[in-house]
């Protein structure tokens, strides 16, 4: 498919490339990565560019890869007055996202208790298929989780004031309305609060080595303030609840595209006008799922703290277990941007892409107002993750968005043919990474060889300037669902 480089790190596919495209598509990448992009990404991002009411450009981040509906790594903004909302632009796992906790511990202090700590974390944070949550809830209480998100956790002793100050939108989005959620979604979600799930979800202990801190000042502001400091990263979302909401509304939207005469190139892009009854109902249900995910990661955080306190025999304060940030990478949100010289309200879809606010942005918590938002990027469990900071250029170019991970290059099936889970576990232990996994097969699917090199994709966004490197986080212990 025709593409031209419009500046260093950015390629554009013109509207002439495919019949029906309403806006160009832009790929953020690097000379090294662009030629390795799946053909499916080109097809999918141009399908997105063909949806009604899209504004600016359909965007794909450097970790982009073939998904369904949107590519993973896709970002698109639609007018709230005449654009659409599509579950295929958000993903089944609504508000799948990342949380980063800092600690006062160093690698030297943690190492003697690493195995014991992983065992305790594996016990307190249920992972894998069919595991039940740690907070039994009645229906009326679960509805409060859906409307209040992390605020519910705060009211029930699972969150501190500081936690709420360190979550995107303080972990509570509106308009959440459980009346727009099916009984099936309620049933799937009610027993899963505090669970990690499976697939690529994980809880990871990581070390920040001095040579991997790229901006000392910003790192310090984000709580990375000592050599070989231990941090904890959590990657999970809204579990069965979010998946059921997406499943339910995809069926409703399949009929809505006929009702509203919307042409789509992939049935997974089923959508409805944002202002329609169907579009508004989905937005309210999706927001419930987003709040559920914020609460899920908060309850997991509570249980991580319990494990650390018990293993080290110190208080939470002494251990310094504070949330650096918590941010979604599968979500749709109403935001305002200047587009073609005009301030517009849009519904921004991010599917495998992270909000990345620069300094002075309205939605930043006060403590990060002058420096920008921490951006959490999860790499493969063998190669490491990154802490970045948002920039104002992202607001100007990418609807305040950047990448979310490494990006897959090898299918799960192929990865399992290349490596066995038990062999991978031994390799990782030889590398100094201890693993507790619910499934050895699932572990093999997540091998480092299945992903792009995290350093390459990070360099791509850092070079173009839609976020900037602060520190690289190396894994030393992994709980895998």
């Amino acid at each position: 498919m025709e593409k031209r480089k419009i500046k260093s790190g950015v390629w554009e596919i013109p509207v002439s490339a495919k019949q029906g495209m309403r806006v160009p598509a832009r790929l953020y990448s690097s000379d090294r990565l662009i030629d390795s992009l799946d053909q499916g990404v080109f097809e999918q991002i141009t399908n997105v560019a063909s949806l009604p009411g899209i504004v600016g450009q359909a965007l794909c981040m450097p970790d982009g890869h073939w998904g369904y509906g949107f590519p993973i790594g896709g970002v698109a903004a639609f007018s709230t007055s005449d654009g659409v909302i599509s579950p295929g632009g958000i993903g089944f796992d609504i508000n799948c996202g990342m949380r980063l906790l800092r600690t006062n511990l160093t690698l030297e202090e943690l190492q003697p208790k690493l195995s014991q700590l992983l065992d305790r974390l594996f016990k307190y944070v249920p992972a894998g298929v069919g595991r039940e949550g740690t907070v039994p809830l009645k229906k009326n209480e679960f509805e409060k989780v859906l409307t209040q998100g992390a605020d519910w956790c705060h009211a029930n002793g699972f969150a501190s004031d500081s936690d709420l100050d360190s979550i995107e939108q303080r972990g509570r989005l509106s308009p959440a309305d459980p009346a727009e959620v099916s009984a099936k979604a309620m049933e799937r979600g009610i027993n899963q609060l505090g669970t990690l799930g499976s697939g690529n979800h994980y809880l990871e202990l990581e070390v920040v080595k001095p040579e991997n801190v790229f901006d000392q000042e910003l790192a310090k502001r984000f709580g990375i303030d000592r050599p070989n400091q231990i941090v904890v990263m959590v990657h999970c979302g809204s579990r069965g609840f979010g998946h059921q909401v997406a499943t339910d509304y995809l069926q409703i939207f399949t009929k809505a595209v006929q009702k509203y005469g919307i042409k789509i190139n992939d049935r997974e892009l089923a959508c409805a006008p944002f202002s329609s009854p169907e579009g508004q109902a989905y937005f309210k249900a999706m927001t419930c799922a987003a709040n559920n995910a914020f609460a899920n990661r908060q309850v997991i955080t509570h249980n991580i703290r319990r494990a650390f306190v018990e293993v080290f025999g110190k208080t939470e304060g002494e251990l310094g277990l504070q949330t650096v940030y918590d941010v979604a990478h599968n979500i749709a949100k109403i935001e305002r941007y200047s587009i073609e010289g005009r301030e517009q309200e849009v519904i921004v879809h991010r599917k495998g892409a992270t909000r990345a606010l620069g300094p002075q942005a309205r939605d930043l918590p006060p403590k990060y107002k002058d420096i920008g938002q921490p951006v959490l990027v999860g790499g493969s469990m063998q190669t490491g993750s990154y802490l970045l900071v948002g920039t104002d250029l992202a607001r100007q170019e990418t609807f305040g968005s950047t990448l979310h991970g490494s990006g897959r290059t090898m299918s799960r099936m192929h990865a399992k043919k290349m490596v066995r889970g038990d062999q991978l576990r031994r390799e990782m232990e030889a590398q100094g990474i201890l693993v507790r996994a619910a499934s050895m097969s699932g572990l093999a699917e997540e091998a480092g060889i299945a992903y792009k090199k995290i350093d390459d994709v990070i360099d791509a966004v850092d070079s173009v300037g839609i976020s900037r490197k602060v520190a690289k986080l190396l894994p030393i212990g992994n709980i895998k669902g």
Partner: protein
Amino acid sequence: MPQKGEFRFLDGIAPADAAFEATGHDLAEVFGAAASAVFAIIVNLEQVRTIVSRQVTLESESQDELLYAWLSELVYLKDVHRELYSDFDVVIASGETLRLEATIRGDSVDNLAGLMLTDVKAITYHLLAIESTASGLKATVVVDL
């Protein structure tokens, strides 16, 4: 004994997830094979005893919408009852709408601890299709893991 449907996994489609083809002489066989494929992603089906049984009844106006509803219903039942299924008796009747009646059998996840491979979390519409072949019907399905 009627010949049962079959399935095979497809590589190179949706690399972060899983895709399969299910084939059979008729729609009921294809639906049974597709259900087997979904649970074969989660566990080795030979390890799942058939000690619990549930009934499923669904209606739809089209074959592929019925397939989506059928497989999504199985994912929902798996999560809510914390069970995995390995045996599917499916009957599909044509009338003004298509009507599916099925008996599914399986076991609790508690009895399968340590044996599960990964989870199937949802069924997608991406490339979802049912088409005729020389020997019957073929469905293509991509699932979210």
